[in-house]
């Protein structure tokens, strides 16, 4: 047992830190529209040119093929350097692309992976539907094989960044006769195809990155099916495992910085009765100490998960809880921040660097997205603890 990294890992950390120190963009990341895409792409291109794109991607697909320990180091240094949120490239770089490295054909890989790594291709996920949220296998969007094409009709929802994306990777029902999980297909759809309408959905946090995507007999080449017809459930599960795994490690590191910022905020403002510091309010202090500790515990859990992965080839069961644990902590953080600011903190402020209300509102989604809290607790209860369904 040892917390220390190997000298080689430490050298990698230094190199990453050095490169990030001089290359992280200092301009604020635009929050919407083509400017956002342009910013995200340019930053990805810069990482690619610097030899840092695809830390965890296999080398045969242009990645660095590094160990999970080095991914961890990269994420830690990335966050420490204040590098931009990956934003619109999240789906392609962090899990859609990696899924293609596992499930795609050589042709599919050649067509997309280099472009993704260079920041030239934006993907969006199309799994959820209005009538199939938590119950993913209940989805209804149809894909009918017609010659060498799939004709897709239906509606997807909660597709992040679809309004600026090039491709939509969807799960569609290609065989309604088979059992629910067995008639689905995973397919990559060019969003510029005829018959597709994208409508952004404004959230209660007032941002526009979720979209509805409507399909009206859109025609997709069968060559875009990944993992084979009717085999989509398996592909989707491996995609989701990636989404729920290391892909959000950066979020954990940034959570700790957000907690630190709130402690500083509470130390510099008066308490709820106008006296002392907010941080001297024992209730506030207890909440903030709890959040700071949770931030540390998430790091400790990551270390444990990575150690297990390194030793056994599979991550430990911690992974199934970390996203929920972080999401609920972010919700508590939001509420604590609103209490610290009191009546002076009621202005809507989108970005946490200028205020807290946006953080508070945004994290109402943290126990819904990527599996509701209820589903995630079911998963822990059933798959980890072995309780009956």
């Amino acid at each position: 047992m040892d917390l220390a990294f190997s000298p080689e890992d430490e050298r990698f950390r230094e190199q990453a830190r050095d490169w990030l120190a001089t290359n992280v963009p200092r301009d604020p990341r635009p929050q919407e529209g083509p400017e956002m895409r342009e910013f995200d792409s340019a930053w990805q291109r810069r990482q690619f040119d610097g030899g840092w794109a695809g830390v965890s991607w296999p080398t045969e697909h242009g990645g660095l093929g590094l160990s999970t320990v080095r991914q961890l180091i990269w994420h830690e240094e990335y966050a420490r350097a204040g590098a931009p949120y990956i934003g619109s490239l999240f789906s392609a770089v962090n899990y859609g692309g990696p899924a293609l490295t596992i499930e795609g054909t050589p042709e599919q890989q050649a067509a997309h992976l280099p472009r993704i790594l260079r920041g030239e291709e934006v993907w969006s996920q199309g799994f959820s539907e209005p009538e199939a949220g938590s119950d993913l296998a209940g989805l209804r969007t149809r894909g009918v094989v017609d010659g060498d094409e799939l004709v897709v009709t239906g509606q997807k929802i909660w597709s992040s960044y679809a309004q600026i994306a090039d491709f939509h990777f969807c799960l569609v029902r290609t065989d309604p006769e088979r059992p629910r999980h067995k008639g689905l297909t995973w397919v990559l759809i060019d969003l510029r195809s005829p018959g597709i309408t994208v409508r952004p959905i404004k959230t209660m946090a007032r941002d526009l990155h979720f979209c509805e995507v409507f399909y009206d007999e859109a025609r997709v080449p069968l060559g875009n099916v990944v993992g084979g017809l009717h085999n989509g459930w398996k592909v989707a599960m491996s995609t989701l495992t990636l989404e729920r795994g290391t892909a959000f490690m950066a979020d954990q590191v940034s959570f700790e910085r957000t907690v630190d910022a709130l402690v500083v905020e509470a130390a510099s403002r008066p308490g709820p009765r106008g006296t002392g510091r907010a941080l001297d309010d024992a209730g506030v202090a207890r909440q903030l100490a709890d959040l700071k500790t949770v931030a540390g515990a998430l790091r400790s859990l990551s270390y444990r998960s990575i150690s297990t992965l390194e030793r056994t080839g599979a991550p430990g069961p911690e992974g199934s809880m970390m996203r929920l644990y972080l999401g609920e902590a972010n919700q508590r953080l939001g509420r604590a921040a609103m209490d610290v600011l009191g009546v002076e903190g009621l202005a809507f402020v989108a970005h946490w660097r200028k205020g807290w209300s946006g953080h508070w509102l945004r994290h109402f989604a943290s126990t819904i997205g990527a599996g509701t809290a209820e589903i995630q607790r079911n998963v822990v209860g059933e798959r980890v603890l072995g309780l009956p369904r």
Partner: protein
Amino acid sequence: MDVLADADQAEITALAREFLTERLGPDQAHAVADGRAVVDAALLGRAAELGWFGLGLPESRGGAGYGLLEEIAVFREIGRAVSPGPLLPMVLAARIAVLGGADSQAEGLLSGTLRAAWAEPVPGAATVTAERVSGRFASFDPERADVLVVVTPEVAVLVPAPDGSAAVPSVDPTISTLVAELEVAPLAVLPADADPVYLRGLLLSAAALVGSAQRTTEMAVEHAGTREAFGRPIGTYQAIKHRCADMWMRTQAADAHLVYAALALDSGGKVEADLPGLAHGARSLAAEAAARNGEAVVQVHGAMGYTWEHDSGLHIGRAEVLRRWFGGPAADVDAVLASVPLSDPRTTISQAGETP
């Protein structure tokens, strides 16, 4: 002893709901949030015609002569409807002007031609006396306001509204906010010993919060009973069912305590002496119910509940704003604890509480 609504109150509730649904309900709140509409003088005039701004004032002074319980019935509906517009500031401003003898303001406020906005003192940074209002205040919807209402446990005043054009959107998308310095003399003054306007206003804000909690409970129950996942209505799952039960429990407790506190205040303290503790207690239950139910209604609705189009965000934002008025949660804690007798009941009684 009877704490249930009587026929008159039920009728007031029904009328209020009808008007609000048509003119000042969630649809209008969404329109205001989207910038497609404003609550203008005409709309305030309509509410004034219904007598809302003088509901709890004597008929001899231009009011409707109803009691606090009728005002509460209306504000519960306002909370259910997440009505846009400065309804609570208007009602309190009219009361201050009428009972404080500021006749010219009184007429304008009762008729809805003069517009009031809320100004909440920033704790520790503001001073409010009958002579002077100074320091930092958070105002809400100040842009078109003529007067600001400032209410403390000791005194309630109206002051001329300063330039509010720098106001920004708040977490309630129908309400703007501005934190700024004031240094001004009141236009109207109503000391607490003349009228408990602070406690009345506190209970009206609690009523709006209770109404919101009632509505979000209904929304959650309705969705849980119809939305299906894995082949069953999601309300069959205990995680959802128990969440709905908790929403209902919180709301029932808050509403019952609100009515009790209002009846006690209406009796002038004859039944219960500790009016501030009761009223702040009722507000704290109402605020918690509205805020926790706001979280729960989103969770029950899933991603749909997180959208701008859904009513949940309106309820969440409104609850967060309202619960910060009247001193916020810290004032509730202080007032409630101030009501506890300092003698130890263990030394003054023999056996109570030795439950098994």
